[in-house]
């Protein structure tokens, strides 16, 4: 039994264990050990890891093999699962069970997701890939559907998207088989780029649509925010952190390995001006901007983060589509970086929900004094999400920006920055409305979240900070992934990259930043008079006295001025499109039912027979 067999067996074992005794107190410990074991196994094995078993079915070889690209995603997957597992192993899980939900199924869904993703990530041919793809979709569905009626509704909305994507992929798969005669990924990486432009374009369209749906790229993104936001807490964290990235994994393989980016750039809509590659880049850029500004309007912390999740996916794809060493490294690094802080942020929001019972951004406030650790997690998390130094989110975005600058794509660059600025606005609203401002009277006695919840959150943000200070740690994995995919490999240093056209050394930047903070603190605390701590109600209120029953917290319609300007731009076009498709389906369905309700079927039969005969004779 070799390493990949062992990895997959461990994962399958865990699924079984979750089904058998997922509701007990022992299981999270066992799962924690097994997840850690898998991480060690993954990190320590030589690449590529090939599975010992393979099978032949209908003339196709089906096998599994994990290379550097797959391993990069697998590490993130298992890491996210580990954090979610610890989080739900403690008080959160007890509460979840007490509310009448099934913890066993939640654990099983998590374990099932991990197994499905590992199968997908290690697929060696398109059949194994499609099996993994579908298992991932439906395991994801299972995880989304846990945790109540709203979660189930949101998950059901995912079904047509998931299925539409799967069918597009399946269509691409059979056409690939028919045109190239093989489904083996290695073989396809040699022959697929030799197909004619028309065939390649059709394959690209089918596969890319299928993969975009999973990733939540425009215009197929509508399902994702509710499906991820409404899931049970740790499920949301796991889904948000990695689930949608399976689409990116698939797109990476398709665009870089199988078709090659230069071939994709041959498919021109307008010769020399706008190619399929540009289209992908623009889809990615619009995916950054539009969902980010949708997030800005959310009043539920979970939805806000889920919408940002969609937006952040755009940076990853844009980086990969740029295809140079810097950009693709940025895009890939962003997968890891985003997973660390997004999981932490989601867990922090659910920690707040655990204590207060709500994620409504208009019914919270001032919790920093009650839940300081959770606040710290959210602070570091939003700095990461907004992409500011010193967190790791800055590094990956910086790499993408730089690639766009060097490649000379001003408009795309502008879009990425607009996305970042929108994110800053949006996440400030998140932390302000939750943790800053006035503490509500009913939250006066709230305590910090229990350790089972704060430890995984803190571990995640510490990871996000450490890989921000020393991005080289994560870039070693990225370089491996780039090499496995056939991309140019980034020359990196521990602190970032060194280049005559503009280097980045986070060790120095963060060092200087903290030195600056130190001096600032010295100035503030060392000089001048001692400050006295005042109560939050001891506040300027235009001459009035404040009391606890006065709501003195600005939260609703936070960016009124901005909305006054950009508000009319929110058209809801995608929602309209979605409902138009639904209505058209409904109409078609009514017509078809009318056919089956016809009063005189015998007459129809006779008419049909006569027409059919006529056709046969005429032929």
């Amino acid at each position, binding site marked *: 039994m070799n390493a990949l067999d062992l990895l997959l067996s461990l994962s399958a074992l865990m699924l079984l264990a979750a089904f058998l005794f997922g509701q007990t107190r022992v299981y999270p410990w066992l799962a924690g050990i097994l997840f850690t074991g898998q991480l060690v196994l993954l990190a320590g094995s030589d690449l590529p890891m090939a599975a010992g078993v393979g*099978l*032949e*079915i*209908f*003339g196709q070889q089906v096998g599994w093999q994990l290379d550097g690209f797959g391993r990069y995603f697998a590490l993130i997957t298992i890491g996210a699962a580990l954090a979610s597992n610890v989080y739900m192993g403690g008080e959160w899980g007890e509460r979840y069970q007490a509310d009448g939900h099934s913890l066993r199924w939640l654990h099983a869904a998590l374990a099932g997701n991990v197994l499905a993703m590992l199968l997908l990530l290690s697929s060696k041919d398109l*059949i194994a890939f*499609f*099996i993994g793809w*579908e*298992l991932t979709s*439906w395991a994801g569905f299972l995880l989304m*559907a846990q945790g109540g*009626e709203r979660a*189930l*509704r949101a*998950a*059901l909305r995912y*079904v*047509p998207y*998931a*299925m*539409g994507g799967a*069918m*597009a992929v*399946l*269509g691409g798969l*059979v*056409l690939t*088989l*028919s045109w190239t005669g093989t489904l083996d990924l290695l073989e396809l990486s040699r022959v697929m780029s030799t197909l004619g432009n028309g065939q390649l374009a059709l394959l690209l369209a089918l596969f890319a649509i299928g993969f975009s749906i999973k990733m939540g790229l425009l215009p197929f993104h509508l399902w994702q925010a509710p499906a991820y936001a409404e899931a049970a807490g740790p499920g949301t964290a796991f889904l948000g952190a990695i689930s949608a990235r399976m689409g990116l994994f698939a797109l990476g393989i398709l665009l870089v390995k199988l078709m090659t980016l230069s071939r994709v750039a041959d498919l021109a809509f307008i010769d020399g001006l706008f190619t399929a590659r540009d289209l992908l880049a623009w889809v990615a850029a619009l995916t950054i901007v539009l969902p980010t500004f949708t997030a800005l309007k959310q009043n539920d912390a979970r939805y806000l983060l889920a919408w940002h999740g969609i937006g952040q996916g755009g940076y990853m794809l844009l980086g990969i589509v740029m295809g140079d060493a810097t950009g693709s490294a940025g895009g890939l690094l962003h997968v890891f970086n985003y997973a660390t802080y997004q999981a932490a942020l989601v867990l922090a929001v659910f920690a707040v929900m655990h204590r207060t019972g709500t994620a409504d951004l208009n019914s919270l406030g001032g919790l920093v004094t009650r839940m300081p650790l959770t606040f710290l997690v959210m602070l570091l998390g939003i700095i990461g999400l907004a992409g500011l130094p010193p967190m790791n989110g800055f590094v990956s975005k910086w790499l993408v920006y730089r690639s766009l600058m060097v490649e000379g794509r001003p408009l795309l660059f502008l879009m990425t920055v607009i996305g970042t600025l929108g994110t800053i606005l949006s996440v400030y609203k998140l932390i302000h409305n939750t943790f800053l401002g006035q503490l509500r009277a009913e939250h006066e006695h709230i305590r910090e979240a229990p350790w089972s919840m704060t430890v995984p959150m803190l571990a995640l943000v510490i990871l996000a900070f450490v890989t921000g200070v020393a991005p080289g740690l994560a870039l070693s994995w990225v370089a491996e992934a780039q090499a496995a995919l056939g991309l140019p490999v980034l020359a990196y240093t521990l602190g970032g990259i060194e280049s005559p056209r503009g280097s980045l050394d986070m060790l120095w930047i963060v060092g200087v930043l903290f030195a600056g903070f130190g001096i600032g603190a010295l100035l503030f605390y060392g000089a001048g008079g001692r400050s006295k701590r005042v109560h939050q109600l001891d506040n300027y209120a235009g001459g009035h006295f404040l009391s606890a029953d006065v709501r003195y917290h600005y939260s609703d319609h936070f960016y009124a001025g901005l909305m006054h300007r950009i508000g009319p731009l929110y058209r809801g076009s995608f929602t309209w499109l979605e409902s138009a498709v639904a209505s058209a*389906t*409904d109409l*078609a*369905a*009514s*017509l*078809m*039912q009318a*056919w*089956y309700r*016809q009063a005189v*079927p*015998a007459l*129809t*039969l*006779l008419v*049909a*027979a006569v027409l*059919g*005969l006529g*056709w*046969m*004779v005429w*032929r």
Partner: protein
Amino acid sequence: MNPSFIALVVALPLLAAFLLPLVPKVLRRLVGPLVLLVVAALGMALWQASLSEPLVLAVGGFRPPLGIVFYVDSVAALFVLAVALVTLLLWPWGGDASENLDRKQSLTLVLAAACAGLTVSGDLFNVYVFYELAAVTSYGLAAGSRTAAAQVATFRYVILGSLGSLLALIGITLIYFRSGTLNLAHLADLAPQTLHDPLGLAAFFLILLGLGVKAELFLVNTWAPEVYATAEARVSALLAGLVSKLALLVVARLLVLVFPLPEAREALLVLGMLGMISGEFAAYRARDIKRMLAWSSIGQLGAAFIAFAIPGPAGVAAGLAIALHHLVVKPALFLLAERWGGSLARLAGAARRSPLGAALFALFALSLIGVPPLPGFWAKYLLLSGLAAQPDNLYLLAGLVVLVTTVVEAVYLFRVVGVMYGREAKGEDAGLTNTGSANTQPASALAGSGVFAALLLAAALAAPLLAAPLGRMATQMSDGAAYVARVLPSTATLSGAAQ
């Protein structure tokens, strides 16, 4: 294996059906199942034997093309086995007045005999006879629930069925008029000279329409939703699961042996596509689960027609895979739906009352929409890769139709799953919801669909092992020349020499 055993698979159930009332009351309930077990064993043995070479039985010793010929290749043998097993699983065990039960058991046995006959018959005349027999028994069974709705639905079914039979008979007459024979092997031999012209095609089309009534072919399937919704679940399961497949099988044989023409395939392809579209879209708006399943069944048979329209073994393999998969899944779903009648909203929270039933439903739904590694995926994969390999754009269009309708199918099936796992209705709706044991399945139905589920999972696990026999069966069935050679050794050598 002695080919004369073939006759037993038809004769035994038929005999048992007529002798049933004469058997002492104590043993009466055992006769049917025992006979079916014997037939199943025979089917198994025949399948083993025929995998290497098809078996031929000239009934009464008259050599073909004069006498009655039973021809059993591995496909036919497998369907004999399936007929016996499925009938056994859907056997009317009880829960009814004794006299009524006798009638049902007799009818079911006759139906089994007719189905077995359809699979093994080697000439069109016998096909017609067994088809009529199956039709008449199914009318009786469909009306068996004795509700007004069932009788109205059955009346519609009878009209369509009889018209269909008439059309088929005209078609057969035309063929006989042109070629002077009804033996399939002989016809296959003569067809290129006598039947590959507009008249022959017209005959094919008429037979297609006629048999299509049972096979839920688009144009002549308007009876299906009402009958399936009003008949007993068991009967719906038999009709949708079994009888439809056998009619399909006959059409496929005709297509392979007598009419291997692009026009005939095109007709099948177009009607199959329309069937898929109409069935799946109609199911999308279905308000009760049995109609939904009926429409879904129409859609699935459309897929099977599309599959058989693909030339060569690839098409036959895909068609067989779809037909067999549907044969396992649809009866199981109908069994589950037995107590889930009425508005879909009444299913709210059904998963709590009947967790196993809901889980099985989800499993079958997943397989039906083709989620790997369940067998439904492999069937869909074979179908789509077969379509993609064809140069004609019509086949690609069919592929597109399959893909799109699968999405629709997933939506409505999972809408039901969502209702079942959702919150129980509260307030005003609560009155509509069946409480207590009202919509939990009877143990027998659960056990029946449990067996189907076990079959499905076993097939999922053994998929790599099943691929080879399926391929073998497809090659056997799609090889028209071998059929002729096996049934008419002398003619084949003659025409072989002539070429």
